[in-house]
């Protein structure tokens, strides 16, 4: 099992990816948020390369390339454009205070490590950090979407959730079949683009981009 030699490295990389989520939480400026998203994308790309190297699975290199281009390149670029257009010089606003958010995120990480241990026992051929880290990312992504006020941050939350699922995919089974993986990349890319377009349009119609204005439709 050549894999064993790389376990340490891979697990370390996964922990770094999880750490970037906390970078997003503490960032108070949009530029820093986008920087954290880029770092997360790059780390995921490196993780793919490491796994490809360890397992000799050439599909991982394709996944790495796509990750770097889409998640560390195009998506941050679109986000950056949207920020410059609608929210430049604005601080990230949240409903909870920073301390509470941090505490909450820690609880989420703790819960997911606890829960996944019960669902999938050790030694099932998977990298043991991947699944709990992935579920933490999904939960924290959801938490970010609820707690942060700008639509752009909801897009960031979505990207974090998707990165979490991607991490779960490569960590547990070296990714889904390539066609499916390609389709998912396309969906997330087109999705972020369309959300970007909507952010522009909302900003134009409402003269602001605060989600509290989006509360007309009820009942």
């Amino acid at each position: 099992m050549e894999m064993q030699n790389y376990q340490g490295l891979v697990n370390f990389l996964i922990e770094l990816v999880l750490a970037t989520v906390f970078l997003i939480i503490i960032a108070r400026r949009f530029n820093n948020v986008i920087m954290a998203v880029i770092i997360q994308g790059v780390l995921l790309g490196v993780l793919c390369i490491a796994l490809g190297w360890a397992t000799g699975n050439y599909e991982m290199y394709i996944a790495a390339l796509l990750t770097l281009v889409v998640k560390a390149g195009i998506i941050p670029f679109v986000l950056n454009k949207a920020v410059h257009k609608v929210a430049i010089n604005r601080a990230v606003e949240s409903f909870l205070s920073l301390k509470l958010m941090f505490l909450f995120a820690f609880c989420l990480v703790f819960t997911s490590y606890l829960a996944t241990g019960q669902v999938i026992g050790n030694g099932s051929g998977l990298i043991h950090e991947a699944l709990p880290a992935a579920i933490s990312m999904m939960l924290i992504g959801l938490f970010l979407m609820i707690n942060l006020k700008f639509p752009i941050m909801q897009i960031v939350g979505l990207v974090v959730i998707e990165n979490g699922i991607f991490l779960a995919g490569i960590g547990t089974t070296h990714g889904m079949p390539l066609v499916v993986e390609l389709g998912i990349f396309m969906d997330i890319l087109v999705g972020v683009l369309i959300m970007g377009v909507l952010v522009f349009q909302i900003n134009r119609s409402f003269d602001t981009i605060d989600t509290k204005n989006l509360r007309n439709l009820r009942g």
Partner: protein
Amino acid sequence: MPLILLALPLVIALLSMMVSNRRLLGAISIVGSATTVLTALLIARQVFAGSSVVWGQFIVIDALSALILCLVAIIGLMVALYSVGYLAHDIRIGEFSESRVKWYYFWMYIFVFTMFLALVSANLGIMWVAVEGTTLATALLVGFYNKKNSLEAAWKYIIICTVGIIFALFGTLLLHYAAVSVTGESGSLDWQTLRQVAERLDPMLLKLAFIFALVGFGTKVGLAPMHTWLPDAHSQAPSPISAMLSGVLLNCAFYSIVRFHLVVSESLGPQFSSNLILIFGVVSIAVALPFILIQHDIKRLLAYSSIEHMGIIAVAVGFGSKLALYGAFLHMINHALTKSSLFFIAGNVSQHYHTKRILRIKGLLKTMPVTGPALMIGGLAIAGAPPFSIFTSEFIILSSGFAQGRYAVTSLILILITLIFTGFVYAISKMALGTPPTRVKVGEDGKFGNALILISLVPVVVFGVYIPGFIEDILQQVTTVFIGGNQ
């Protein structure tokens, strides 16, 4: 053949991009949709003659997919026909400029393409990609009017549905993880293979996968409590698009749940997944009730009724007996046809009265000699009054529930849909009867759209008293998919 079916909407979408003349666009879309219907019917004929259509390892069309495929194609054609007059009216009163019409058609046919892809795909992963694609294709259509409310609806739609459906991706991943050691990389998400090897998969993982898939795709179906995007999107989208969202998109999403259900019930027995679907169905019907009773907006009324009817279909699939499944898919056909024509009617009404508020719409029978009576018929039909088609399928579903001895659940549903009936008929009669406001002129806006509404109501009336032999046969074949036949 299946490749032609997939290529047609893409070709129409690309052609639409290159044309900016409104009339030419309408012609392309109608001719294209008609060809699509023809292709879909040819495929369906082959499938219902007894052999699944298979292409390579990516496309499998069985009776279940073929039925919904035909629904998508037929309602797509009706929407294409209705859109011409609807868009012309909106351009005339300056809702949007003529140059944007091509985007309407572009996204509409991308939407049709993604639905087809979800239905024909043999791979559950690609099915997920396609269902997420439907959200992306329709987001800008929901916000097409570019007003505050429609943009709000579009934003809620894309965010709620994407987050919801991302759970289904996680469910798909768990299924892949459970299967990959048994089937190998290539067959791990192929639903035919999965059904064959289902007994050898880890039941714990399958349970988790199904829960995630149900919540994820259930968001798209509009099952409560994940339904909150649905009334907003349906009420703010242009009416032909609402017809398509309600008439067929919900069915496509439901189809995805059924595919997971079939795999999981093969391994865990029918109880686990059926009961979950049943619970979500009952909750959906219950949640729709208060909103239908107090509704003030005609299109939201129809949207909540869609939640109710998807709930009824879910309940029927949850019951799972042969009779219930027969009722479920008959109900799916009936609901798709009735609801899409009701959205056409709502489109006519709101364009004529310049409002969607039920309180400000009065005396339809007097002002609109075709749309008014059509609203009465369609409204009574969707509420479940005899002798219309929806009554028949609801009756079949409820009687199958009683036949299984599930008295409590079935009675609860019976009470709920009776209450919904009263609320719906009350709202409809408020609009149809009374004296029309003086500002509204008497007469219909377009003959073409009216003819279409009348045509689409024909099966609604006919299926209530007589179900043609070929429909009977199709439904029988669809129910055999559930017991593992038709492979």
